[in-house]
C-alpha cells in the first residue's frame, strides 16, 4: 500500500549573491501525505510570500527542493526517467490562476487540449479525440462549437478558465494541483468551476491540492486545510474547524479580515500590525506581527495538537501534545 504523494521534510531556500550571502526560505520543513485510496481536497492557504506557489512548483516537479524528498507513488520524483517520468507527468496535472497565460497565443484554444491527448495517447483516432474534447467541454458548461477553433483572445476570461478545467477533466489525473483557479474569474462563474473540481474528486477519484489565499472558497471545497505563513505551517486541520474556530493568531487575523457579503458580519475586530519588509527572523515567522508574541516565540514553535483534527504551531497551546511534522497528515485524515 503505497501513498499517492509524500512530502518528506521539504525545505526550499533561494540564495543569491556571492557565496549565497542572501537567502530566502520559501518553505521550511513541510511534510504531508496523501493517501491513494482516499482522494481528498486539501487546501493550502496563505498570502503572497507564504510559499504556496513554491509548493505548487515543487509538486509539479518544476523546481527541486533544497532538502527533503518528494515521493510520488513510492518513487522520488527527482529521480524519475523515461517512461516513469511520462507516467508522472500524465498523472499529476495543474490548473493555474491566469486564464490567458496558459494558452499559446499562436494557436487556437484546441491546442491546449489536443497536445496532451496526442502526447499521452489518450485517443486512438481524431474522432475519438474530438469526442473526448466535446465531452470535457460540455461538462464544464461550454458548447464545443462556440469555443473550438477560436483564438484565446477571442474568448472571455471565464470561458478560458473553463477550458483549463476541461483539460484537467480530460486528463483525469490522480493528483491535481489547483493554484488559485478562481481568483481571476468572475464571481458568478466561480461556483461552476469549484463544483467541477469537487465532482472530479468525488466522482473520478482525483485528489486535489487547492492553493489559494481566499479562505471562503477553501472552506467550500476542501476537507482539510493547511495555513502557511512565510514558508511555515501555522495551523492545520479540518477545514470547518480551522475557519470557524481559528486558534492560531495568524489564522484568526485572516478569518477576521474576510470581507463577508453580510452587513452584520463586520471585518476588522483585530488590529493589523504592518508586515516588516525583510525580517528573516529566528523563531516563529509571525512573531513580528503577532499581538500575543511572547519571549519563547523566538524559537520555532512546533505543532501542537489542539483537537481531533486540529493543530496549531503556537506556544499559546504549549500544554497540548506535540505533533511531529511528518505526522501532520495522519492528523488531517483522522
Amino acid at each position: 500500500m503505497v501513498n499517492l504523494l509524500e512530502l518528506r521534510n521539504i525545505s526550499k531556500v533561494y540564495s543569491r549573491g556571492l557565496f549565497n550571502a542572501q537567502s530566502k526560505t520559501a518553505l521550511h520543513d513541510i511534510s504531508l501525505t496523501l493517501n491513494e485510496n482516499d482522494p481528498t481536497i486539501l487546501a493550502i492557504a496563505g498570502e503572497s510570500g507564504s510559499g504556496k506557489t513554491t509548493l505548487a512548483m515543487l509538486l509539479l516537479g518544476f523546481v527541486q527542493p533544497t532538502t527533503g524528498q518528494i515521493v510520488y507513488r513510492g518513487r522520488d520524483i527527482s529521480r524519475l526517467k523515461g517512461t516513469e517520468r511520462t507516467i508522472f507527468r500524465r498523472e499529476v496535472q495543474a490548473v493555474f490562476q491566469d486564464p490567458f497565460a496558459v494558452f499559446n497565443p499562436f494557436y487556437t484554444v484546441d491546442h491546449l487540449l489536443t497536445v496532451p491527448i496526442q502526447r499521452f495517447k489518450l485517443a486512438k483516432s481524431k474522432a475519438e479525440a474530438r469526442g473526448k474534447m466535446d465531452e470535457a467541454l460540455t461538462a464544464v458548461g461550454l458548447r464545443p462549437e462556440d469555443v473550438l477553433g477560436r483564438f484565446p483572445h477571442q474568448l472571455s476570461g471565464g470561458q478560458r478558465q473553463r477550458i483549463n478545467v476541461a483539460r484537467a477533466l480530460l486528463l483525469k489525473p490522480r493528483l491535481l494541483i489547483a493554484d488559485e483557479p478562481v481568483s481571476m474569474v468572475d464571481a458568478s462563474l466561480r461556483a461552476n468551476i469549484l463544483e467541477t473540481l469537487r465532482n472530479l474528486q468525488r466522482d473520478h477519484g482525483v485528489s486535489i491540492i487547492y492553493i489559494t489565499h481566499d479562505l471562503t472558497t477553501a472552506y467550500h471545497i476542501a476537507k482539510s486545510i493547511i495555513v502557511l505563513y512565510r514558508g511555515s505551517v501555522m495551523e492545520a486541520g479540518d477545514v470547518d474547524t480551522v475557519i470557524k474556530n481559528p486558534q492560531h493568531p495568524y489564522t484568526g487575523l485572516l478569518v477576521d479580515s474576510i470581507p463577508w457579503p453580510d452587513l452584520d458580519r463586520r471585518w476588522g475586530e483585530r488590529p493589523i500590525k504592518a508586515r516588516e519588509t525583510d525580517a528573516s527572523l529566528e523563531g516563529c515567522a509571525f512573531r513580528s506581527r503577532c499581538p500575543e508574541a511572547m519571549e519563547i516565540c523566538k524559537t520555532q514553535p512546533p505543532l501542537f495538537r489542539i483537537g481531533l483534527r486540529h493543530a496549531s504551531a503556537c506556544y499559546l497551546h504549549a500544554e497540548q501534545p506535540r505533533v511531529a511534522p511528518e505526522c501532520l497528515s495522519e492528523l488531517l485524515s483522522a
Partner: protein
Amino acid sequence: MLSMLTDHQASPPTTIRLKSGDAAPVLQVRNLEVTYYTDAGRAKALDDVSFTLRSGEKLGIVGESGSGKSTMALAMMRMIKPPGRIEGGQVIAGGVDLMSLDSESMRKARLSTIAYIPQGAMNSLNPVMRVGAQLVDAIKSHAQTDSKSVIEGRCMSALKSVDLDPSVFRMYAHELSGGMKQRVCIAIGILLSPQVIIADEPTSALDVVTQRQVMETIDSIQRQINAAVILIGHDMGLMAQFVDKVAVMYAGRIVEISSAREMFNDPKHPYSRALISSLPNLDNKGVFQSIPGLAPSLLRLPSGCAFHPRCARAIEICSTRRPNPEAISSGRIATCHLFARQL
C-alpha cells in the same frame, strides 16, 4: 483626529456616516453613453448611465468583466481613447459639467476635483523615480505651481493621511510592499483634496489582510477630506464591508441602485438577486449556485433587456422592449420590466 490616523479598528456602522451626506450632490452623472468602434462592429460600452453621489457618500459599482464599470470610470475622467468615444451625457462635478470643459481645464479638474486611482496603479508607479518625486510631479501637473516647500508639505501630509511613514518620500517603488504601494497611489489621489475619488479595483492583487488595511485607509481618508468615493469592483463582500450604496452593472447599463443593506437583504433586479445568491458564505457549505449562461458580447446584445436570456423571471416584454431605469422607492432604482410602473 489623531486616533483616526493610527487606529485600524473596526469602522463605525454606516448609518451614522450618512448624516454628513445630506448635502447637495457632489457628482451627477446623466445619460452617459460610450461606444467603441472596433473592426468587428460597434460596442455600446455605456448605455444611458445615470446616478447621483452626495458628499461623503460611498458608492460601489459592481459588475462582471465587460459590464462597463471600468469604462465608466474612464468616461467620467474623460480618459476614453480611440476606438472608444463618449457619445453623450453629462458629468457634473464641482458645479461644472466636465464634458463641456476644454482639455486644459479638464486636466486641471483631474486630481483637483475628481481623482482616479486606476486598476493596477501600484504596478504603474515609475520604478526609476523616488516616490516623493512622483507625488510632486502629480501636484505640479494638475495645479498651479506653489513654492517647493508648500508642495512638499502637501505630499508629506498626504503620506501621513494614508498612514505611511514620511521616510517613504525618499524611497523607490520596489522597496515597498504591495499594500504600501497601493497606499502611495491613494496618497497621490488625495493630494489636491478632490471632491470625488474613484478607486478602480484598488485591492485586487492584494491579500486579504492587506486588502482590509488599504480599504480602512480609504475609509479614513474619505472621512478626513469628506470626499465622496466610488469603489469599482467585482467583490460583493468588499462592497458589503465598505460602501453605502451599490450600483450593479450589466452589459453597459446600471440595472439596480440600492443602499447596501437593501441590496444584500432584498435585491430587486433578477441579476442582482442571482449575484447575491451565488455568493459563498459560512452557512451554506458545499452549495454552489451559479448564474447559467454567459454574459453577452457588447457587439451583439440580445433584443430588449440584455439579461433576458439568462433571467429566471423573464416575461414576454423582456425580449422585445428595453426597460428604463425607474425609481422603485426612495433612492432605489431598477432597470427591469418587473418593476416598471404600469403605463
